[in-house]
């Protein structure tokens, strides 16, 4: 039998990482500093990857001359209209599929058949259908946003505890009241998670559609800068796209904080 004496060794703790914004900011700043230093020292060829300072200067020039706003406003309009259309129809279809047997299987079959198609491959078809103008770009975005929204909404409705729906029925609430007060709020976390995915998809499809056939828009601007080997402008466009993604993600995060504050 072994004799033991002494303090009990602490074995708990860990597995609970915390966010430290200072560490995140410092990492980004350090990367920028290394990049700038590499470009200044000639280690990084600036024709292929311009320095952060050169990108910032070009971005400022684009803002001052109004060029950036001309392209950005066109992109934002397409993004807004396409995303809203895809989302409205997607949520409505997902709700119908989540609530009623008559719509569930037909919607599931169509989603299963069409969702896997890479939407970028459909851009030429949409140009044939809707013309080279705004119609084809908005259709591409709307189509790309629609299917993930349907899937997220349907899953969200499926996960609303049935006990809560029975509770609503037991109080004699109308179907409309149950959908409005129980099903929609219950599915909201899944729908909002879907928004994060669809907003990213929408930005990808926006750039792709604008690269295929547009004079205005950040995608067209980036493509034209690339064709001219103007990498300063090209990288400025990419920075704008990155900021656009961050802004949209931040906006969705804000909506989540307000709508899901009960969690």
């Amino acid at each position, binding site marked *: 039998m072994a004799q033991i004496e002494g303090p009990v060794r602490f074995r708990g703790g860990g597995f609970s990482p915390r966010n430290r914004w200072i560490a995140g900011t410092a990492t980004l700043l350090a990367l920028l500093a290394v990049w700038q230093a590499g470009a200044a020292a000639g280690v990084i060829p600036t024709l292929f990857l311009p320095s952060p300072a050169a990108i910032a200067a070009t971005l400022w020039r684009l803002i001052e001359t109004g060029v950036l706003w001309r392209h950005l406003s066109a992109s934002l309009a397409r993004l807004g209209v396409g995303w809203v259309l895809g989302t409205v129809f997607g949520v409505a279809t997902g709700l119908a599929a989540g609530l009623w047997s008559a719509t569930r299987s037909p919607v599931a079959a169509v989603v299963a058949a069409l969702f896997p198609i890479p939407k970028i491959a459909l851009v030429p078809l949409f140009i044939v259908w809707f013309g080279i103008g705004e119609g084809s770009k908005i259709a591409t975005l709307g189509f790309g946003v629609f299917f993930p929204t349907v899937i997220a909404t349907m899953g969200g409705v499926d996960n609303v505890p049935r*006990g*809560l729906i*029975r*509770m609503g*029925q*037991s*109080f*004699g*609430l109308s179907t409309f*009241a149950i959908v409005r*007060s*129980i099903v929609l*709020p*219950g599915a*909201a976390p899944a729908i909002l998670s879907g928004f994060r995915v669809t907003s990213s998809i929408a930005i990808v499809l926006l750039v792709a559609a604008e690269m295929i056939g547009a004079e205005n828009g950040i995608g067209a601007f980036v493509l034209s800068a690339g064709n001219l080997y103007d990498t300063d402008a090209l990288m400025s466009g990419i920075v704008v796209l990155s900021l656009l993604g961050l802004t949209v993600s931040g906006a969705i995060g804000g909506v989540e904080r307000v709508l*899901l504050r*009960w*969690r």
Partner: protein
Amino acid sequence: MTRGVRLILDRIGHAWGELSVLEDIRLTAEPGEVMAVIGPSGCGKSTLLNIAGGLLAPSAGAVRMSGAIADDCLNPLTYVFQDFSLLPWRTVRANIDFVLERLPAAERAARVAEVLALTGLSDFAGAWPKELSGGMKQRVGIARALAVRPACLLMDEPLSALDAQTRDLLLDEFAALIARARTTTLYVTHNLAEAVRLGHQIVVLSRRPGRVREVFRLDRPLLERSADDPEAKALEKTLWRMIRDDAAVAERERAHGPN
């Protein structure tokens, strides 16, 4: 005068596919009284309650109500759920308010304030369900039920998700609230002490398929009863003797299946 109606369960039977869970249940809950239904696990108590409340269509028989419904009653048959069934995205106040949507705003607010005061929740009106203890959540559940001024309360093991101390405290509160509301109450429980504390009729169901084995009557008013009452203790023992063997068989069936 009672607000309650007579609730008649007329030859109720129910089967889930081939599995018969209830057979020939004939019971009448009298206006303003509590009918406690006890029985071993799986005997169909909750199924019977769902049939009584119109949430489940019985395979046989019918449920009828008889009596006058008060003008201010919004939902004659109203549930109090075992798992509380509160909407986590609504505050306490809003959880009660949303079942009153047919009323004008001022009356809604008055009813919410009244039931919050009645259940001691006035200081928690703005709290989220996640901030409440189990006992507080069930207080919200009963406040919500009382807000619609029901003719009949259907209570499905409302205390079984709570710890023993909270259960005892809430049991006394339930007795007072039910006596004050003067509704008919159908109270399903597996806890014999609850049945004896609240029931005017105590219905003992057999193990599956549930049939009425016996109905006991206790006429003492709810507010004059106590947990230490010798008559109540004696009845509790009698009830336990009656259902002990069934409970043991039901437990074995739960572990190994009905065969």
